[in-house]
């Protein structure tokens, strides 16, 4: 399954948060990505989940929940199946020192709630690290099991691009 711009726009429309759509290059740049821009070259947009959560919390008059950084939709080849992918960017980490298990759980939980009643959410949650920390993060996440599910996946930005974007 691969990224779908059309379905991602549909998702934003479905939750009435088109204003939270963000160019993916801009978003990763803001999150601290130091790779040569543009990383994504086909006008890819994603939902800025901090924006979504902020608007929902404001509307519902509640405190903010933690959220993943972004969400977008992937579809299969014939377009009959679609899922939401939640992605968190951790480019600013120089080590895994401040990586907190509960924080990750809360982020997934907060964004899952924000997108309930839309498409189904992919059961693997993606955390993007700088390339020089990816393998340490994979190790870290694995060793947090069972306190952290094995569905929490560490990738770098190139992995994300090659696995979910054409």
């Amino acid at each position, binding site marked *: 399954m691969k990224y779908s711009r059309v379905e991602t726009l549909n998702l934003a429309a479905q939750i009435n948060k088109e204003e939270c759509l963000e160019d993916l290059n801009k978003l990763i740049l803001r999150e601290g990505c130091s790779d040569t821009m543009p990383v994504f070259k086909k006008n890819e947009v994603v939902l800025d989940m901090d924006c979504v959560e902020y608007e929902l919390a404001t509307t519902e008059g509640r405190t903010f929940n933690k959220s993943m950084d972004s969400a977008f939709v992937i579809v299969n080849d014939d377009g009959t199946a679609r899922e939401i992918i939640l992605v968190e960017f951790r480019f600013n980490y120089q*080590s895994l*020192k401040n990586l907190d298990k509960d924080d990750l759980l809360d982020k997934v939980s907060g964004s899952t709630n924000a997108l309930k009643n839309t498409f189904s959410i992919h059961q693997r949650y993606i955390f993007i690290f700088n*390339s*020089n*920390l*990816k*393998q*340490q993060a*994979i*190790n870290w996440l*694995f060793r947090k099991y069972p306190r952290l599910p094995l569905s929490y996946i560490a990738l770098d930005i190139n992995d994300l691009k090659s696995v979910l974007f054409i």
Partner: protein
Amino acid sequence: MTEIKSNIQVNIEDFRAIDKANIVVDGITVVAGENGSGKSSISKLLYFLYKTVANYDVLVKKNLISSLRNITRFLDIVQQEMRFSDRKLRNEFRHESYELRKNLIASENLEEELRNWIQIINRLETAYDELKDKIIPETVRRNTINRLNHIMKDILNMEDQYQIEKEKGLDISFLQIKDFVQSKFKEAVGKINSRPTSLFIEELRNVFSEGELPKKFEVLEFDDLIVSLKKKDLSIPYSIQNAIYIDTPMVLSIEDGSNIYWDDLNELLLEKGTTKNDQFTKLISNEIIQGDVILEEGIYSADDFMFKRKDGATFHLNDVATGIKSFSILQLLLKKGLLTDKTLLIIDEPESHLHPQWIVEYARLIILLNKEIGVKFFLATHNPDMVSAIRYISEKERSLDKVNFYLAKKSKEKYKFNYKFLDKEIDPIFKSFNIAIDRIDQYGV
């Protein structure tokens, strides 16, 4: 690649599993790689190199003693066979013979030692000659002479060239014995003066059972080549003046003639000397093992290591947890003042037998010993926590500039590995560790 600037650079090519390894030893060097990638071979090369170059004189003298072992035995037999002479004289010889051997290692002057050896052989010869005039039963006399002649032939290894005239009576050729002793001393003095690389090569051939040698093995200190198998002589190193090799904490109290480095470490730890208690021995006692390792002097048995727990309970070190032994070795080395800024401490798999929490404590200790005392480390590890702890604690301690990581990567040639310099990057090491996670995924639910 980042330019490597360091005090010590070691270059190895084509040795056992090592295809190529250019390694900096100047702080904390960490090498990782799968089993059979040659990490321990590097440890051993480094250890025996520094053992040889740093203790060159002692090794030469030990070899000298070894080559004179049969002579001393011969002299013992000769004085024993002088049973018709007076006991006081025999005891004197026995004592002097013992002193000769004992003094050799500590002696600064081999020429003087040679004079002492020749002197005692001369005196023995004279005493033996005097026996000729005494009344000794002929059969006893003939048998004794025959035996001594056989022993002497064996020592001189001259079965074909040298024939002792048996009929000549009590005519042991003390002259030949003296020539032999003189030639061995001369050889030793020559070695000490010229420091030929051959002694190191001999050591390597003894250690590596196949007797093979690296195609290239060289050590540079401040960019100057101080050791090379192709160089005739070994220079005297400055930055590292002694090396200690711990390949397992189980080494304590184990005597195993097949592992020279085990014997070396035990010998070192059993050395008598003043006991020091510094901040690090206290750190080990108070913050980690909750006790103290002590060397108990044996009255009826050999000295041995004991572990005294904080509550006063005392155990033989063999009976305590292996993790405690790991820290105890460091504590003993510290107490004996054996860890200095000129020490290279080589540890294979320092994480062995340690609980993950203690792995981190051990790593921290390594970093602090390097930072505060200047001890140099060469570590071969398979453990993610050890690698992470060394990397991030040293950064916190502001000593990351002294840490270098390497990863053994498969070379084009089967069963051979190249050592890749990673500088401070440990993620490639984790990529290798994470193969285990993939395997769990593969074989598990």
